[in-house]
């Protein structure tokens, strides 16, 4: 972490490109952005992200920022969160949002799908115990709906409860008497989002052109 030099180095770019699947141009652009955000430091802190103006109005801003500092998303089998990230981690997190290549096999597609959903799951599962409990879910939903103005906290809570209920009824079905619904596990998470084409939805277009100058 932090070992990456701020100087654009062709070799390092190539390694990163292989790891994350971004093209060299895209990495270059993202690196520029990284430097812009971190004020030319090697590492990025939470505060750096919090200063992004457009992000301010995002209701789940804190969750998203947290995801960038979550070790689980670095594909290194570690847990916990960090204080600052290097460019490589930044890129790794970004790569969750990369559009899949045009020609991929079913297994690859499934793998991408799992990875993306895992990212989403991690965002909900803040205490990293493998389940999204009602509280965790409520928290996210409340944040999510907090900006809409129309819905109060109580409603948000109600919606979260109803959604959770739905998950329980879909995934577990009628429950045995001594069964107890702990929360959404990842497998159940996969199951309920079966209908959502996440592999084609959860990505943004990374341009080969630098537009960082346009938005500060």
């Amino acid at each position, binding site marked *: 972490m932090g070992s990456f030099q701020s100087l654009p180095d062709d070799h390092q770019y190539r390694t990163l490109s292989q790891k994350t699947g971004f093209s060299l141009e895209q990495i270059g652009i993202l690196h520029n952005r990284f430097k812009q955000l971190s004020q030319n430091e090697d590492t990025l802190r939470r505060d750096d992200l919090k200063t992004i103006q457009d992000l301010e109005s995002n209701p789940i801003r804190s969750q998203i920022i947290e995801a*960038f500092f979550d070790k689980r998303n670095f594909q290194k089998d570690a847990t916990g969160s960090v204080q600052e990230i290097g460019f490589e981690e930044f890129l790794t997190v970004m790569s969750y949002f990369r559009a899949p290549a045009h020609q991929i096999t079913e297994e690859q597609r499934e793998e991408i799908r799992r990875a993306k959903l895992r990212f989403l799951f991690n*965002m909900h599962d803040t205490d990293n115990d493998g389940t999204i409990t009602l509280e965790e879910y409520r928290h996210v939903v409340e944040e999510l709906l907090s900006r809409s103005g129309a819905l109060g906290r109580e409603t948000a809570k109600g919606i979260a409860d109803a959604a959770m209920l739905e998950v329980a009824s879909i995934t577990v079905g009628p429950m045995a008497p001594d069964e107890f619904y702990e929360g959404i596990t990842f497998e159940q998470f996969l199951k309920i989002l079966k209908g959502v084409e996440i592999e084609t939805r959860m990505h943004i277009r990374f*341009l080969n052109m630098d537009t960082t100058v346009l*938005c500060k």
Partner: protein
Amino acid sequence: MASSTYICLLRAAFLVCLVYPLVKGNSVEVPNPHHHQTENLTGLPIVTFKWHHVETPYLVALWVFVAGLAKLSVIQLNHSITGVFPESGLLIILGFILGGIVVGADKAQTFKLLPSTFFYYLLPQIILDASYFMPNKLFFRNLGAILIYAIFGTCWNAAAVGLSLWGCHEAGAMGDLNIGLLQFLLFGGLIAAVDPVAVIAVFEEVHVNEVLFILVFGESLLNDGVTVVLYNVFDGFVSLGGPMIDAAEIFKGICSFVVVAFGGSFVGVAFAILLSLLTRCTKHVQIIEAGFVFLVGYLSYLTVEMLSLSAILSTTFCGVCCQKYINANMDERSVTTVRHAMKMLANGSETMIFLFLGVTAIDTEIWVWNTGFILLTLLFIFIYRIIGVFMFTWMLNKFRLVPVELIDQVVMSYGGLRGAVAYGLAAMLDESTIPEKKLMISTTLIVVYFTVILQGTTMKPLVQWLKVKRAAHSDLKLVEKLNNRAFDHILAAVEDICGRIGDNWWTRGWNRFEEKYISWLLMKPKARKNRDYLFNIFHKLNLEDAMNYVSEGERQGSLAFIRNDEAANVDFKKQFDSEFADVMPDIMVDMSNYDFGIENISAAAIVKDTIPSVSLDIHGQDGKNVVDDINAHRLLQQHLYRSRKHHHHKYSRSHFSINQSEEEVQEIFQRTMRSRLESFKSAKMGVNPTKKITKFHKKDPTDKMNGHTEGNGYLYGDEADSGVGADGAISSTFMRDTYKMGAGIENPVFMPDMDSPVHSPVHSPPWLLETEMSVAPSQRAQRRLPWTPNRRLAPMRISTCSTDSFLMADVSSTLEVHEEQPQSDNGESVFE
């Protein structure tokens, strides 16, 4: 099925026989006022037969009726032959038969689908319906692709078909025809467009995935506008004559194309704004506000037609733009009215269009056969459609994040159904400038029949065979909606972080702008509050639960069980004294095992807080406590609002009679609050109101906690199966879903926090909070029965099942379900 077809045919025969001598030479739609009866009367007749007075409306009504019967029989027929044929195709075939009967009786076709009828009376509601129900997000997300297909695809089709036909004609493939290049292009223009009516009719039956659907559907809707424009431009060229056309005229033609298309769209948007503003202030004329939607939609169509802009585009954009605002502004019932009426009108006209298309064909006059022309047209439209789709998709795929797949392209090409718009345009051709009008009409008809019947029929097998990605079963999944919402924000945020202005940036920018200004302008302030999509779904789910509960109650003998419930609670004190006392210590012990987070709360207080659960042991309630009815009556007398004489008229044109006056609601509300306040005071002792039960679900559950849920779960399951059997498949899946939901409610994890303001007076007095909350249950809370302390001691039916495990289960599950309990079980009895 057979019988209804028979009836339908009979009806048609009757119609023909009856009407034949009278309508000869008159088209149905044209009124003829000069047919007054002028005989001199010799005496006062008791009854007279005045056919001419009613002729036109009568015929119209009769044909509409016949169309309705045809639809009915087609549906029946389709049912029995397992839906191989699309409805549209069957309707056309039925139309052939009807037409045959008409011709057989009349010796000539006296009925045909006139372009004016089609364009002014049948088409507008279909377009309005399609746009009003347009999935907006999907539509605008794919708008670029749709526009490319609709504009360039259609132009390509028109030009390629026209030119190729002309080439073939020049090469001598069609024999001697008096058609020039311009006429061929005109014909190409009218035959180019995929027809929304046909496409919707077919694609609705084959549930393809949503992107494919919106591409085909959006294209068909918008390219109708384009084709009409093309038609007008070429029609102008044709009447201008070949030699007059120079570069300037062509340039003017292109300008006209742009102006007509975009002008129409803008006028449509203007009408959408007008309509939205109008619905902002129709609060006091709720009964007719639904009518405004249709009128303004129709006016937008006619106005634009008057301005010779694209009427279809206008109505499309009118519907697409206003749907959000009018749905939010209007009363819920009006929205339902609009939805149903819209569907009815659209479905009706669709039926009529296909039926009349069939009827029109059986006419000896219009048919002119030219093998070369007809076959070549069929071939060309098929080939160029495929080429066009693949060409434009290839171009689009370079820019699309998610490419349109090959299989989808095949389906898109094959879904190029032509329909009534093409026929209407062909029938509008001017015979003086286009001598071969009849040939064009017959060719168009053949193309329509070929595509609708043949391609429409083979579409389903093709889709299955190609394994086209089908639409995901889209029921109301709150989780998915929530996740979609989360996606939007995540994507926007990631775009922000990586510093690029992308699609999500624009979407978000628009959303913000829309929220701030457009909604402010076009939406009622109150509507703005609860128009959130998620909230709607939540609301719907809640409604479903409530309805479920009511129907459950009704199955159980309806209010009997609710009243019994009531009765059971009335003499709680007595029961408490005698039976409950010995159970009490056990509760206390049990209670301490669960970490409620409320250490010093007494069991009685907990029990008091609970509300009788719906599903609790309904069976046990029947037939017991007959004596308690007296008590119940006393209680009801004491607390229920005594209904006053209503001075509403029984019949009112402008209002549905509403059972309650405002004051009544107010009074009930105040009483409720008062009695709650009392109970609050009494319950306050020994309770620590600040603590919440939050960790409850994390604790290990014991058998006792859930002992009761099992029973309920099974109860629900059994009843869902037995009770629903007779209903259709849809309703049974619905029931199953909701029952599952019901079973889920029993699970302790969903125990709502005890600090939820409305329902548990112990912790936070609801009347100190906002009384009008946006949650559905709490709105209805106003109308609730007074909550006597007695009442809240519901689980005292302990007496019927007095093991302590059941008691605990009762406590837990009543706590959980109380969110939807009150309004359903009290509401019913109040409004009895």
